[in-house]
């Protein structure tokens, strides 16, 4: 019946396709939510569209695999047989199974293929390669050992092959400091604090599980430069961490006092209001605090990092110097920003996770706004500057997802984002901007295969990923978990060979 419905869809959309003289050849770079939603919408909108999805990894799905925390609760909704993560993966896998869609894993834009290669080969190129770097704090000592970006730490516990060697030392200290109070900060803090037996049945990377089992970390400080009214996390994630079993949560009641400007923010912002309520409740609720070795979570507000303090050896971090802040209204935006007060305090710790935001990286030939870390665009159409400094549209080049909007938003946000970009592609296509009126059509997939062959580059098709998937699940089953992730490049490529 699934077939039948799909077939039904073809019947419906065929009406639109008579306009297409030859297929519209679309290349999407990045197979995260933004890439897959774009492919899905593209294939549905245009029966004559042929879509190739490239990813630098042998595995698809971007942060759905390597970002989303392994310990989010399984869905409790009885009528749903699966977790929502699996639901999303299934949706994306159905897109990949479409006969007009192909996946090319292990193909890196920038090394395996260049942007100009792709633009020559495809009618439309959609960049959806996310944000794979980090915002810097720019304070002294940032390079000391024991300091990691949350991205590295997350990739490590989620088994991303680029970070299987990160191996943070969790045994030399009882205190970790997480800088930032967004949802990623809450994720990493929760992984450090969650009882190990609750992680054992998840698909967390085996090396991380081993390390966390031996972890001596008992205290985690979540440090925000602003107050509880401005915390960047959302209620769902906050509720999750506050609900950890036997966790002692510390919030200074004085930090909960609100100014008139805070009240104004609370009035306007529903998320802020609900997050603030959770903080207030947690600060006043009675907690048992006499369990031996009990883990503690400290929310520290109004503190910004001033410098990292080296240990005696000089190589690793032994603490963070924090400057107290107060909030000041920032004229035009009405936003309250943190300003230093000149008062400092030191916080001892042996591990620091910087969770102050992700950042995209440009590739050769791509217009890029360094300041905002995004590709300048108009509804997904990539913009560049001509000699007179006027913004012009780069024909046939599009962007979506975190690379387009910056590193914010949940998985579903990318669905709307993809919708907007696909609407732009369709409009340009209708206006004849994407297909040459004369000359031979662009080669699309054939051209890509040729380039890969010339470079002797080996790509991983979706069926290759399915072999990885099967192997991971089988090995997981033996350990009573959803999967045992393969975490190195060599082993991933070996699994593809079956």
């Amino acid at each position, binding site marked *: *019946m699934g077939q039948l419905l799909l077939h039904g869809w073809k019947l419906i959309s065929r009406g639109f396709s008579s306009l297409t003289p030859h297929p519209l050849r679309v290349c999407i770079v990045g197979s995260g939510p933004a890439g897959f939603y774009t492919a899905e919408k593209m294939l549905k909108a245009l029966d004559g569209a042929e879509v190739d999805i490239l990813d630098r990894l042998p595995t698809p799905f971007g942060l759905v695999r390597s970002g989303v925390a392994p310990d989010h609760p399984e*869905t409790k909704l009885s009528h749903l047989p699966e977790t*929502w993560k699996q*639901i999303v993966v299934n949706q994306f896998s159905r897109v990949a199974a479409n006969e007009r869609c192909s996946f090319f894993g292990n193909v890196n834009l920038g090394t395996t293929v260049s942007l100009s290669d792709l633009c020559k080969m495809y009618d439309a190129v959609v960049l959806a390669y996310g944000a794979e770097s980090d915002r810097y704090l720019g304070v002294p000592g940032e390079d000391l050992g024991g300091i990691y970006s949350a991205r590295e730490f997350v990739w490590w516990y989620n088994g991303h092959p680029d970070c299987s060697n990160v191996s943070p030392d969790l045994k030399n200290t009882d205190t970790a400091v997480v800088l930032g109070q967004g949802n990623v900060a809450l994720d990493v803090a929760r992984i450090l604090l969650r009882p190990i037996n609750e992680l054992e049945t998840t698909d967390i990377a085996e090396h991380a599980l081993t390390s966390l089992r031996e972890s001596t970390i008992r205290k985690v400080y979540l440090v925000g430069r602003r107050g509880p009214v401005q915390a960047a996390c959302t*209620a*769902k994630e906050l509720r999750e961490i506050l609900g950890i079993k036997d966790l002692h949560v510390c919030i200074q009641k004085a930090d909960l006092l609100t100014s008139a400007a805070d009240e104004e923010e609370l009035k306007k912002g529903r998320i802020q209001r609900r997050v603030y309520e959770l903080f207030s409740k947690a600060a006043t609720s009675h907690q048992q605090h006499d369990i031996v070795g009990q883990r503690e979570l400290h929310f520290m507000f109004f503190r910004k990092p001033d410098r990292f303090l080296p240990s005696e050896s000089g190589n690793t971090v032994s603490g963070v110097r924090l400057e107290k802040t107060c909030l000041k209204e920032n004229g035009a935006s009405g936003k309250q920003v943190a300003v230093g007060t000149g008062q400092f305090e030191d916080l001892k710790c042996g591990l620091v996770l910087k969770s102050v935001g992700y950042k995209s990286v440009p590739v050769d030939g791509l217009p890029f706004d360094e300041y905002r870390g995004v590709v*300048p665009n108009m*509804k997904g159409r990539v913009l560049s500057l001509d000699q007179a400094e006027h913004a012009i549209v780069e024909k046939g080049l599009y962007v979506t997802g975190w690379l387009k909007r910056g590193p914010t938003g949940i998985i*579903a946000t990318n669905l709307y984002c993809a919708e907007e970009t696909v609407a732009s592609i369709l409009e340009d296509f209708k206006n004849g901007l994407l297909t040459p009126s004369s000359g031979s059509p662009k080669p699309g997939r054939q051209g890509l295969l040729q380039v890969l062959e010339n470079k002797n580059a080996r790509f991983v098709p979706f069926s290759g990923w399915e072999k990885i998937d099967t192997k991971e699940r089988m090995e997981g089953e033996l350990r009573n978990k959803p999967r045992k992730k393969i975490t190195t490049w060599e082993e991933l490529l070996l699994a593809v060979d079956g």
Partner: protein
Amino acid sequence: MFLSRLSRLGLRIAKDSGQFSATKRGYFSRHFSHNLHLVNNCSFSTTTIGNVHEEGSEQKETISVTFVNKDGEEKLIKVPIGMSMLEAAHQNDIDLEGACEGSLACSTCHVIVMDVDYYKKLEEPTDEENDMLDLAFGLTETSRLGCQVIAKPELDGMRLALPAATRNFAVDGFKPKPH
């Protein structure tokens, strides 16, 4: 069952030239699984279309719900008791997403109850629903998640609006720099 689905499929194809554009549709195989689920759990017969008033009985098997899309177009549909508005919308080709298929992880099934009296007849949203509503585009005082609103007799005649397109991701105030 097979046949009735087939005919419904036919209907869907026939209807398609109508008001809702084909490009905005949700996931097909998902529709399918929702159908199945429905058939199994709600013993809802696909042949029952329209309100069924049994003589001398107050019991209704379906209720009427009107969906108003972004352009203000209205569509009146029958929703079997016990079915979520998300499933009902999908069965009737209404342009409502539902990316997480009802697992309370996305808020793309956001609907606005147009009449406060109907809104009050709904059970209070759970914390989990509120958590996702927080993230919905164009939230209003009477917003709900379509996957959590379940048809019950008191809701007969309810009108639900799909939130207007407030999804502008264009880069505000972008000042291009040379590259």
